[in-house]
């Protein structure tokens, strides 16, 4: 079967790629575009390590076909920092030590940023439910929740 030609936008850049019909967007990002920040933990939409934004919507890229990216806008973890300036979610995760192995961290950051884009002042419970699709086996989530709260405060311009 011949490959499918896809024209899309990845992290603001116009991008073209060829993919097989059964290839997921995660496969394309990692294997074709060398954007390996998105991780595969399960390939079934259960762990959230491959979280990206597709036209501004938070999705698991393992549940999207590469071909479906045609004409869409994709934002991955690689686009979240502004040059050398980290996004407050990234900075606060480091300040809190809210990562251990760091494998789920890209997905957590993409998901947490998506939350704060929509809800600048979430409760702990709202953060916990929003991140319920992101498995972290190392931290027990506690420091992640605190880091997201402090990132929210930073984004609101409050001194923490």
């Amino acid at each position, binding site marked *: 079967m011949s490959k499918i030609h896809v024209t899309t936008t990845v992290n603001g850049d116009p991008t073209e790629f060829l993919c097989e019909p059964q290839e997921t967007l995660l496969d394309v990002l990692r294997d074709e575009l060398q954007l390996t*920040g998105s991780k595969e933990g399960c390939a079934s939409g259960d762990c959230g390590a491959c979280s990206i934004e597709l036209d501004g919507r938070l999705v698991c890229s393992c549940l999207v076909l590469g071909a479906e990216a045609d004409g869409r806008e994709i934002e991955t973890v690689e686009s979240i920092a502004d040059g050398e300036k980290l996004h407050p979610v990234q900075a606060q995760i480091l300040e809190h030590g809210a990562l251990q192995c760091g494998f789920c961290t890209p997905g957590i950051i993409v998901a947490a940023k998506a939350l704060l884009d929509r809800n600048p002042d979430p409760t702990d419970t709202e*953060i916990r439910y929003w991140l319920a699709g992101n*498995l972290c086996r190392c931290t027990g989530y506690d420091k992640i929740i605190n880091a997201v709260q402090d990132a929210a405060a930073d984004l609101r311009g409050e001194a923490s």
Partner: protein
Amino acid sequence: MTYEPKDLKVVGTRPVRPDGVDKVTGRANFGADHALPGQLVGKVLRSPYAHARIVSIDTSKAEALAGVKSIIVGEDMQDIAHELSQSGESAIDVHDLSLNVLARGKVLYDGHALAAVAATSAKIADDAIALIDVTYDVLPHVVDVDDAMKPDAPVLHDDMFTKGLEETPTTASNIASRMEMAMGDVEEGFKHADVIIERSYKTKAVHQGYIEPHAVVASFGEDGSAYVWCSSQGHFAVRDLSAKVLGMDSSSIRVIPAEIGGGFGGKTTVYLEPLAIALSKRAGRPVKMTMTRAEVFRATGPTPATSMDVKIGATKDGKIVAADCEFRFHAGAFAGSPVGAACMAGLTPYALENARVVGYDVVSNTCKSGAYRAPGAPNGAFSVESAMDELATELKMDPIELRHINAAEEGTKAIYGPTFKQIGCKDVLVATREHPHYKSNLGPNQGRGIASGFWFNVGGQSNAAINVHEDGTITVVEGSPDIGGTRAAMAMMAAEVLGIDYDRVQVVVADTASIGHTDGTGGSRVTFATGMAVTNAAEDVVTQLRTRAAATMGVDVDDVVWQDGAAIATKGDAGSLSLAEIAATAARTGGIIVGRSSINAKGAGPSFATHICDVEVDPETGYIEILRYTSIQDVGKAIHPSYVEGQMQGGAVQGIGWALNEEYFYNEDGILENPGFLDYRMPVASDLPKIDTVMVEVPNPSHPFGVRGVGEAPLVPPLAAVVNAIEDATGVRMTELPVTPVKMLAALDARKEAAE
């Protein structure tokens, strides 16, 4: 080295970890992130049966498929004699390891590998796997540990004759070994008991649940050497085990450690690495292999299912007079469960005169069990700490008081041999009793449980080198994969000894050819043992800096002290030279300064932990909510407190999952029915409350900064803490894990019926 109290500037603070930015931007390279030009994709054919004889494997159709570059089956592997290879906390039998990597003769569990293919694409490799014809002769199987011990159980290994009995049996069985530890006279002790609790408990196999599946890229060269990129808890073990399985020299394999996406003990052995090397050798091209999540569940090593009996007797004032335990652990398809560690750890929080623990290591048709965070101890503690809770209830005594009366302390002789030096067992219990959580009120259907736990912690071999650069910055080179922030701890200890700022120090985890052998990241050893090597290497640097400075200043080296990052002459007016100043002229004063240390660290200080758990049990649905949780632990000295707290929190949550949700669910055909994160339900953020932590710091006398390992003890108490809380809330004692809502509701209904 011994502990000396000192003023600390860096140790105990909370800086950003050296590898932090890479890990929040997606730049960090994990196992599956590496790629080589021309690489092939490798896939594995796995058994669909729990137990079967392999009659034939026909690969001809797969070989004929365009794009298939190499195939290996069990016959291609060499036979290896039984030999124990020490890897991290547990010894690995390389004969069994080889058969686990690729089956020969029989498949022993659902998911057992029996062929591997490398092809030009994942699709072709998958198609080739489907084209391999295997004829099986399906055999009867056994999963449950108690069933596997029965005389009429299907036997996995014809050559397994139980070790550890007075007389070695002549009939093969699934009982690999029996072990016994004892002190005092248990029968005599029970005669003095006013109260005796006797119970049986069961736990299911649970997986470490690291989010990163196993992954490797191997490249075999024409000169007979191989490069291997993979994530593991010990790349030296990956090298040595792969070399043994493949009949290669260790020096012919160079393993480059990737960042590791969680391990918890599960990445201390090899699964894919020998296959990838062998496929690459045959194909003449690099081969990349990654496991699917289902393969991780079906074919790597969860912690074993267990069946345990505990009998504890005490006088009416709470003094334990005897304890008698029998632990039966299934090891999976090959011998080697952590039952020994369970025997050694289960009763160890207590000073006992009369105690006996018997352990059985049993094989069954399930994947070979592996190490999981304090291997064996959580199971053992679940049984002992549940019984302790019942004992406290019977005695109408506070459960902390009961534990405190019997707690181990300095001078206590443990059942496994040693006499404890300075330990924090009692300090932890006191901190637990004084914590506001323990004094807070509970509502209807709510309950509180506490449980304690012990873990040995280990030392072992570590290497470190410290390069002092011309500009006065430092690179620490060490061999311990960083699984939870240990680069930060290494940098902090080096900065502390050298008296320089933390941000002047970088840390590199070097490959197997670039630093001396370092044991795996396991046994809670890295901050203790590799930290000791880094501290030694930094002391070595200081000695050299003082010598160079003395020569430059023209004074005797004995008259130069190292203070705040500078060599200071204590006599005359020679003044001082900073590290940066000495480094700048090092090329002219004898060459670049490199400090080194190669050690086998002794004196790992044991950890004791006590957890408090509050639950609410819904009487309508059996749903159990964790309301509040506090983890209290003797951590020795917290080098970077955030990462110590993180260990305590993460371990507690893994224990909550083990207690309430997680289990390997085998159907009647012995097939694993839940090999995915949807059906193998690990805790998510919305399942949990805050996990509070209290770090009790009782310094380890054998470490320069007082470090004890902290990583594993946090998984020891939670199982019983949760179940004890459930009992407090409902009055029902749950003895089998996990306590799912279905099981809970059935138990509540049964009690209601009994009362009516």
